């Protein structure tokens, strides 16, 4: 029998931090820029006998900064733990991670579909990379340790995500914040940011969490994330409709076929034998230190947009699309202040910039932008749909003129232009109107 279900989804996102050096040694943190394999390596990140880790302070600071940006609480007493497992890309046979005392916990990230609770953010080291290649006719597995011990943060959410679209927006917002804080590049294709979703369905009207979950791992695009969740929802609904329970398992995403596929079941899930890494002293942080980091935190995009709405009257639907870096926000702020001083409408300015009424770059002088804006004329903003409706009406009422226009009297364009303006009763952007008119008249 077919029932109605709703999605119960939490996400785990890994992102590499772009510190100068690696997480536990002085090697250069540049796995994607390295010209050759295994050049950014040393006894520590190669896991040589006797080598010891020393924690990268910057990486710890940045992890906490992200936590503060996501309204997390910070553990003043924290530590690193060993996560023991065997894999050829893990040279020590354990990954230094954080188990029960992550740096950050209990935060929230807002999406347009509602808030997503942040369970925890912890800091760990990335692994090396395996390359399966055919060399001189032999199938070989090669290991590149350039990425070994690159600082990696894991952001885990509560099962608050209610739709594939929300999952996508959550991940995008998270990427934007990490980039805005300038702590990671989040290059999805290179693996600088990796997405995992825990997906299950609950019957509508039933309280509590479902009794199972499947984990879809190693997704490297937001779109695939959305598709994978959609696919899982259909797949799991079919099983549930047949009175089954989807097995607890890890699944991969096949981008070519657009499907998920089983990788590992719970029965062979690893026991990681976590224990505090005795090579790294526990970390005691002070309120003072956290406050210093808070003070360094830039004003975040959401806050900036809200402030601009109040101060300059710029609608957030425009401002939220206008910048992705602090330097860009600073530039825009200068522009709006200047516009305000000259009694210009900042919201209209923002709107014309978003709608690409004129070209600009963040290197331009704000004065230049205002000049371009002025050249547009003091026009009213009219939606394309309204404009189109008016044009169609004018054309329909002037069949003669249309016939003449089509016969070659193109100067009649001005006639249509004036008629449309009258019809609208507003001053519109001439270039925009002319372009639309031409399109419609030649139909």
């Amino acid at each position, binding site marked *: 029998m077919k029932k109605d279900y709703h999605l119960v989804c939490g996400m785990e996102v890994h992102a590499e931090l772009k510190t100068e050096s690696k997480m536990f040694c002085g090697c250069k943190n540049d796995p994607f820029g390295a010209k050759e394999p295994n050049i950014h390596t040393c*006894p*520590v990140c190669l*896991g*040589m*006998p*006797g*080598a*010891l*880790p*020393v*924690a990268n302070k910057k990486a710890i600071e940045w992890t906490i900064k992200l936590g503060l940006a996501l309204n997390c609480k910070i553990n003043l007493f924290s530590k690193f733990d*060993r996560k*023991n497992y*065997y894999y*050829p890309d893990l*040279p*020590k*046979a*354990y990954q230094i991670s954080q188990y029960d005392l992550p740096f950050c916990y209990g935060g929230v990230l807002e999406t347009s579909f509602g808030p997503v609770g942040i369970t925890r953010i912890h800091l760990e080291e990335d692994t090396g990379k395996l390359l399966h290649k055919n060399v001189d006719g032999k199938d070989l597995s090669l290991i590149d340790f350039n990425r070994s011990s690159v600082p990696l943060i894991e952001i885990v959410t509560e099962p608050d995500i209610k739709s594939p679209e929300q999952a996508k927006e959550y991940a995008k917002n998270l990427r934007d914040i990490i980039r805005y804080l300038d702590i990671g590049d989040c290059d999805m294709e290179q693996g600088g940011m990796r997405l995992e979703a825990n997906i299950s369905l609950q019957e509508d009207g039933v309280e509590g969490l479902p009794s199972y979950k499947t984990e879809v791992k190693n997704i490297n695009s937001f779109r695939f994330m959305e598709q994978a969740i959609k696919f899982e929802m259909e797949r799991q609904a079919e099983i549930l409709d047949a009175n089954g329970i989807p097995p607890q398992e890890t699944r991969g995403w096949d981008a070519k076929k657009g499907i998920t596929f089983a990788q590992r079941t719970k029965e062979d899930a690893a*026991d990681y*034998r*976590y*224990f505090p*890494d*005795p*090579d*790294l*002293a526990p970390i005691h942080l002070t309120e003072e230190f956290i406050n210093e980091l808070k003070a360094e935190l830039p004003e975040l995009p959401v806050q900036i947009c809200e402030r601009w709405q109040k101060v300059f009257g710029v609608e957030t639907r425009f401002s939220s699309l206008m910048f992705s870096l602090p330097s860009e926000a600073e530039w825009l702020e200068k522009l709006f202040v200047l516009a305000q001083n000259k009694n210009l409408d900042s919201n209209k300015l923002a709107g014309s910039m978003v709608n690409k009424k004129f070209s600009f770059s963040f290197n331009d002088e704000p004065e230049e932008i205002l000049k371009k804006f002025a050249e547009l004329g003091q026009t009213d903003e009219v939606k394309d749909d309204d404009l189109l409706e008016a044009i169609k009406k004018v054309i329909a009422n002037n069949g003669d003129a249309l016939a003449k226009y089509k016969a070659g009297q193109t100067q009649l364009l001005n006639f249509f232009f004036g008629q449309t303006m009258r019809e609208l009763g507003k001053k519109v952007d001439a270039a925009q109107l002319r372009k639309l008119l031409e399109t419609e008249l030649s139909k």
Partner: protein
Amino acid sequence: MLNTLTLKKALDKISKKELTAKQIVDDVKAEIEKKNGELNAYLTLNDNGTEIGNLEDTPLKGLPIAVKDNICTRDLRTTASSTVLDDFKPQYDATISAKLKNAGGYIVGKTNLDAWAHGSSTETSQYGRTLNPRNLEHLPGGSSGGSAAAVAADLCIAALGTETAGSIRQPSAWCGVVGLKPTYGRCSRYGVIAMASSTDSPGPIAKTVEDAAILLNAIAGHDPYDGTTTAEETPDFTSYLNQDIKGMKIGVIYTELEGLEDVSKILLDQVKVFEKLGATVETVKAMDPHHSIGVYTIVQRGEVSSNLGRFDGIRYGNDRSYFGHEAKNRIMLGTYTLSKGYADQYYNTAQKVRTLYIEDYKRLFEKYDVLISLTSPGFAKKIGASEGSAMFGELEDMLVEPSSIAGLPGISVPCYHDKETNLYLGMNIMAPMYREDLVIKVGDAYEKNSNWNSWRNK
């Protein structure tokens, strides 16, 4: 026979231009040639003689120092006495190897140990046991048995060892030499093949307390490559030699333990030396050291199982089948105690008991400047004694284990010589964290006011 010189005497003679380091190195190498076949103190010798150059102005002046084979030495084979690393030549120097070289020490060779430092006899070495030079029917102790034997047999001028729980002090006691286990974090562990990371402490094994202080000067200090090393300033450890110990308060512990009656009598007789020097001596009860066996067994096995994971057969030539019986035993036990559901019961509980020891020492050190016990419950055991005895090391190390897991510094100095067997007992002097000054001061005073040091009257 320049190989029988103490480090201090050798340094003095070179300073006075009476001798060169090369002459001493030659004599040491000749003695190794003669005796190592039987003793098996060294696993690998340094054929490279070019390191002996113009080192007159360095603290160690080019003198030959033996280095335990779990300490990485660049381009010089380092096996940790396990055939898993049979042909492993490290690409880097351990910090203490580099420091030793920078101080003008000449690494004459790499000494035998219990494989991966698992043991207290050298009998778990996959390259055969070392014999005790004082009596060839007996064991040298371990795990730094090769270093202690090399010092006792004058196959070097001094040596480096490492201690996790007794591995410097116990073989030093059995071989009748001086072994100084520094505070955890005083000497860098970077490049020391990890056994139990939370207690590993490298330190000197030498002929006299003075020699140990000189060698400690060379290897101690903060290391940016080891986050657990102390940021505290490194003092000149030789400045604590020849000091008055009048007025010091000394507590003697573990003398009430069952089965130790005979040796405890010797110790109680020997501590009278301190009373003559004006110190006050009291016997006092400390937390029962037996619990430390459990703590150490759990913590050490757990850490071992994780530390040895990297020898998975992919990168070091020989695969896991090359692990010896003892290592496999410990990996299995450690894996079990760290497993889900058991970690709380074992590892975390052990850490709590460890804290109890730390607190017990704190309490005792409020009253006493140093604490003294025997280093080992008895004389060196006969060869073969460890075989079939799974807890051999833990029992032999019981008296130094609590202070090891608490991270305290300690020194073992010879405090008795049995004429019949030619074997020694060691006195273990312990002090609070970072107070090596106290163990050196008290150890030196004892050594100079007793007759047990075999180099003193030479």
